[in-house]
């Protein structure tokens, strides 16, 4: 049960992230919810590689035991980089919307109708 602790954290973060995206009214808080959801998925990816009693997968001066898997670490790194680019683009959109519409409340930035 103890070894499943990261997966409990993943579920908790996912719920918090999705609740923030759906329920909050301020645009910046919605973007923070997206960032929390991304952290949940990154944590899920890293916790897949854990092997019990393993050490970090670095060969420099390493003691002679088993290592955890390095492939999920590469996947998570790529995902973090994509997350940085996503956050930068979303925040730039928020700046432009604030300058042109005057507010960042999602009820008031609905000029595109049916």
């Amino acid at each position: 049960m103890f070894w499943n602790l990261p997966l409990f954290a993943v579920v908790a973060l996912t719920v918090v992230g999705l609740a923030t995206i759906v329920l909050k009214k301020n645009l910046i808080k919605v973007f923070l919810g997206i960032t929390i959801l991304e952290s949940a998925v990154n944590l899920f990816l890293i916790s897949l590689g854990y092997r019990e009693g393993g050490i970090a997968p670095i060969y420099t001066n390493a003691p002679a035991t088993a290592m955890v898997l390095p492939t999920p670490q590469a996947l998570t790194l790529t995902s973090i980089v994509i997350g940085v680019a996503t956050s930068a683009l979303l925040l730039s959109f928020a700046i432009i919307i604030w300058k042109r519409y005057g507010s960042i409340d999602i009820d008031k930035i609905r000029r595109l109708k049916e």
Partner: protein
Amino acid sequence: MIPAFIVENSPALMIIVPLVAAFITPFIGRISHGIRSLWVGGAMATTSAVTLLLAFDVYNAGTRLYVFGASAASMALPPDSGGIPIRIIFEVDPMSALMLVITAVSGFAIVLYSLASEKSHSGLESYYTLYLLMITGILGMVSTGDIFNFFVFLEILSLASAGLIAYRIDGGVAVEAALKYFVLSTIGALAILVAIGIYYGEYNALNMAMIATRMQFSLLDQVALVLIIAALAMKCGAVPMHFWTPDAYSMAPSSITALLVVASQASLYGLFRTVFTLYNVTLNAFTVGWLIIILGILSMVVGVTMAIPQKNVKRLMAYHAVSQTGYMLLGVGVGLAVLGNQSLMDAFGYMAMEGGIFHIINHAMYKGLLFLTAGAIFLRIGTYNLNKMGGLGHSMKWTMIFFIIGALAIAGIPPFNGFASKLMIYESVFVFNPIIAIIAMVVSILTLASFVKVFHSIFMGPKLPEYAEVKEAPMPMLVGMGILALVVILFGLFPNIVVESLIAPAAHALVDQGAYIGAVLGGA
């Protein structure tokens, strides 16, 4: 006559050329506008040439494999790894080759069109950089054989297209549309990443052929299947996740809308690749097939009924794009529903799949043509509102002819290409379940009615006084539209040749999971 070096390395060159050209464009743009236009046109022409070369090679010689970072390009299984492919590979089979052909032709026609339509805007080096990045994303997405690589190219595509939708800021409305598209796209991409994590945790493999070999349809695999179908159906605009489509398609510049259509088809390709190659007969083909058929029927009906009262011509065309995506889902869904049963497959299953896949290439061509004509009209008269237009048939004759070709093709009138693919879908779906075929035909009639209304209000009628000096669209735009119209007419006149040489190999390659796995693991 073509060096063997280029043919052998063409999967890598297909990605290198637009990527390098995209990042040199800002430097060339500082010299002058004309040289930048030449540079972008030349880069896109080179990319299209290499892509068509690769597609031609795949249609002649079979599935091509390209391993990045090995000591030889086709060595998928390193000798000291125990028979497991460990590197990122590009596996181009005939279905990928079809999507490559669509991207090459559309990308080149649209870049010719944008040279004229964007000439009066500022910030053009960002436009062309993002455009070439979008082309890289689409080309990578349809050729890759590694599921995490698919996710990376999908994200490249989403980022570039979100930036391009918001390109003309327009008082902020375009940015609002791009924001909606991008938030939904990010959540979908995170869902796909969770599914990739599930596959990696279960099977310790990221290569699509390895996952297909080791696939048992456990509960976790069902969760991953639902996540991937939901995310990719959202990316291609199927109902009930289609709400970003009218906003994003109507606010983007018209050339980008035409390329967004191709990007949606690439997500549809991803959906088919997952369901047919990763899972194939291990899943409950009847249930999943009916799920896709229901998504298709909802898209067709909702798309065309929401399109009829629209006043903005691009929103109307965007709803029709949703409706036509329903046809593709319907055709391939019928093929999936009879997947395990060989006799039913031979009777109507293969024809349904061929109809759906043929509709993919037809839709990219005629929908792109329609959006480009809408953009030409906007360039000359400055509005998209149907109530304000009228009488343009007197001055914009070539645009009117291209619009007629596109409208007749989308309604399924012979001799254009829409008729050929829709006939195949009607015939095969009628054998499967007659009611669905009748729904499809009614939707087609409503499509025709909607486009007759649009044609009448734009082009017919007396010449309005405020549009007295409207001239024809500039020549590069006409050439771009002409390329797409030519493909529409040719595919409509000779559908047998097209189906036999392009579509039937693609349908058979999609269904045949063993050939896909064998190219990586078996003989190579």
